[in-house]
């Protein structure tokens, strides 16, 4: 009991501190905003991110406080299970649920039963609208890989799985496993030249993108570097051998929630 209290205390302190920092940061932004200076969309997004945050954290936190007895989203057992099977803390699990529910509030209940977390699926078109996924060129692959029935529609469990793998604390090996499956576009267990072409094509979507000859040259270079046994495709082992050494992999294969 005491341990719990101290943990909650830390959470409260952390929340208030973040509030303070982001409020002070958002202050000048808001001030200029009110003066009628308009900015580009990216700016507005980040403005609202800072702004939204400082106003959201308080209600979120209070819901976390009463969670134990009044408005319980999950049972104690469920929460414990989630804590043991993901890289999230209680607070983060509740935040993930909030994000999930925001997608379609009339469909997703406030109180999630065991069945609801497993069987209630949101269609992929809806999940694609999440800002974290909206701009990702591999979003359809991500949804497909994490959907437990292979359709691309995610249940809450799948959604939590997805974010857990992409979270900060997930180990490199786990991330590698899923990265391989995301880049294995045709799902044949190896990354062949066609998969590579598709990956490069998605990465360089641009009006003056790479020419087919350039893409072929790049594919050739990649196979040259990574295909150790020269059989014309990358196996999971070759893939993890190369990518695990890339210094930025863990930082970039990361979605914050």
């Amino acid at each position, binding site marked *: 009991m005491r341990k719990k209290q101290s943990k909650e205390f830390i959470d409260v302190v952390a929340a208030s501190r973040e509030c303070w920092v982001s409020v002070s940061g958002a202050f000048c932004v808001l001030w200029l905003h009110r003066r009628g200076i308009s900015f580009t969309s990216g700016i507005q997004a980040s403005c609202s991110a800072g702004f939204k945050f400082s106003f959201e954290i308080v209600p979120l936190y209070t819901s976390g406080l009463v969670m134990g007895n009044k408005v319980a989203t999950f049972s104690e057992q469920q929460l414990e299970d989630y804590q043991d099977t993901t890289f999230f803390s209680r607070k983060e699990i509740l935040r993930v649920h909030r994000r999930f529910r925001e997608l379609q509030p009339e469909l997703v209940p406030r109180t999630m039963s065991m069945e609801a977390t497993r069987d209630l699926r949101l269609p992929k078109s809806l999940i694609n609208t999440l800002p974290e996924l909206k701009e990702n060129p591999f979003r359809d692959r991500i949804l497909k890989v994490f959907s*437990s029935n292979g359709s691309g529609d995610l249940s809450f*469990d799948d959604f*939590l799985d997805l974010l857990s793998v992409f979270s900060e604390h997930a180990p490199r090996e786990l991330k590698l*496993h899923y990265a391989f499956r995301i880049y294995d576009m045709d799902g044949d267990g190896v990354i062949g030249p066609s998969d590579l072409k598709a990956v490069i094509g998605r990465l360089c979507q641009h009006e003056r993108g790479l020419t087919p000859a*350039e893409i072929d040259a790049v594919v050739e270079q990649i196979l040259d570097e990574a295909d150790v046994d020269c059989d014309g495709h990358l196996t999971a082992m070759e893939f993890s051998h190369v990518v695990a050494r890339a210094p*930025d992999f863990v930082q970039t294969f990361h979605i914050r929630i």
Partner: protein
Amino acid sequence: MTDRSSLHSGGTSVTGNGIKEAKEKPHHLQSPATTMSTFPVDETKEDKKVSWETMLPSNRTNTIDVRTWGKTTSRSRRTSTLRHGSTPTDEVELGMMPDLSQGLPNEEEMWQKMQQIRSLPITMGEKRMLKAELRVAQNLRVHGLELIRFRKRQIWHRVQSFALQILSFFSPWKQTIRSIEANFGTGVGSYFLLIRWQMLLNFFITFFVVTLILVPWEVGQSSCTNLNFTVLSPSQSALDGCSRSNNASSCDDECMARNDSCWLEYRASVMTTIANHSSQPLLLIQDAVQGTGWMEYTVAFYGYYQPAFIPWGNDQVYNFALAYELVVYFLLLFSLTCMAKSVATGFKDNIGLGRSWLHQFSDLAFTSWDYCIDSAEVAHLKKKAILHAFRVALADKEYATEKAERNMRKKINLFFLRLSVNLLVIGTLSLAGYIIYLVTSFSESFRGNTQGETGSFSNPEDFQTLMIGFLPSIVITALNFLVPILFRAVVRFERFSATFEIKITLVRTVLLRLASLLVLVLTLYSSLEEERGSNCNSDQDAPCWETYVGQQLYRLCLFDVFITIFITILIEFPLALVFRRSVPPTSRWTCIAKPEFNLVGSTLDMVYSQSICWLGMFYCPVLPIITTLKCFIVFYVKYFSLLFYSCPPSRIYGASSSTSLFMNVLLVSFISCVLPLGYHVTSLQPSVSCGPYRGFGTVWSAISNEVDALSDTFKKILFFFGSAGFFVPAILILLVALYYYRSKAVAHRAVVESLTSQLVLEAEDKHFLIARLSAVGKQHVQV
């Protein structure tokens, strides 16, 4: 195939030989590690068992191999999973472990398995079932020593997760950095992380400076009655209330009296200035930014302190001179440790693990996309940047072939071209150094001329003095701004590859910055050299040269903050506002309306301010405080510039390369800051008229005096550490260790090579066999 469970099996069948084989393969592979099935799983639960086997072969040896569930995992569930399994020591440890796999697993193993569930690549439902299984599974209780160890590990685990929460409390701006990363990529995000790191480091330094230098002195001073100099005669010891540091070895009574008189003279001159300036607000402000006048006689500068024993509780004294020195050493050492740790991690990632230049294209294809990005504009820019990076990589390849084909004449041409460019660069650097030297000497001599007539300024002259006082700072900042532009221009002629071009410009810029700082300090040292002497009457110009050095660095620091804010808010921002509407996005003037965020330049700025802090900490103990504030301000100024007008860099900067750049440059600048300080501490005589070391031979002698006062045996031990008898064997041992690790690294490399060739051979075998098989099959059909 797209079905999830079959995809899992697909993951295991890495050889691509179909699912059927894959289904069998894990069973086969599982046999050496049957421990995992020791929790009761009856055969009907076959489908659940699959969940354990749905791993890449590489992972099978890394994460879930039950053998490695052993000792290595539990230290920290957050980090160990990233590291364990790959180190050879684990294997050794496993070999030495008693084999517990025969019977039921014990509590400890179950607990570890429970901790590991989260890093298995299986669906939530499967994980949940696995957890339920583990929970009801029978296990052995651990007893005795094992139990203690187990409990210790559990507690340690809890403490660690608790500590992580506490640590997250000390990382402000989490949300801000998150939104920066989402909008501008991890490369820019890492710059802000570095500012945060630097701010925390400086905060820590500030904490120690305040608690161990500033506060003890202020408190001690108020308790020392006779520090009030209204009634004082030189013959009397100036510090009656507090006994003064004992440095009898270098100074007799007469010399002490002379020192005191020098100090009184210095103090009187400062007091006159303060009195003269006190009625004019303009002069007071000028003093504040220049660190002269009233500012000179505060805790901010070296000259304010005294060699004293401050009474401390009952019969205890606080040897201020010693403490001052030790605090500075400790903080420098602390900074070095922090940096070395970061550099070592970066090194491990980049070179030990990475060799990323070997996998340039694969890295681009598989790791260049930033999954953090969530704004359309930035996603578009990122795609453009990746496209650009692919083109650069292809161009680099072409460059390599072109370089190989270069004939003798072209080579000679290029050699002379590069030689002349390098000469030009060296010439520019020396010229910059000479200009700094001239300006500093001028400003210093001017200060000398006006010293006697303080207080007789009329207003325009005030401004003139302010300008001349700031002249070195202005010139240095201007050179730092202008000369890199020249460097960037000339590097085009040298025809290096695109990546190397950036690196060499960077190195030159760093050289310029460090050289300008060094020239400044050395000029100050040397121009003050002749004025330093035992007789204080001769040094009218700079009665306290340490304070003077401190003032210069203080101005430099302030000016740097000022320039950063000025350029961002008063120049770039209005320009961007004015030109935003009128300039079409494709025009070449977009660099005014929407300048690119200069990641490398901004990083260097931070390094530079940190080197000023290290260099000046001894002379001006408040510099860490200013630097902390500066980090705070720069964070928001840069955030502001990103939000309102900058666009993210068009080149791909990985977070790791930006971090390692920062740390490596910081380390170099640290060393070049410590060198002059070390020279000062060991070889120069401190001013006789001010500071905690007046009357000492060198600053170091405060420590050596203290050592002399110790007991004989202890002294002998300490002297032994300083003697050749210790150093020669120590260096020899270090060399041997170095040699050992080097040969180990060479051996490992050889193993890697032979393994690679073995892999290739096996692949050839496979091709050969498949060819034979198909040939035999054809023959069979024909028959």
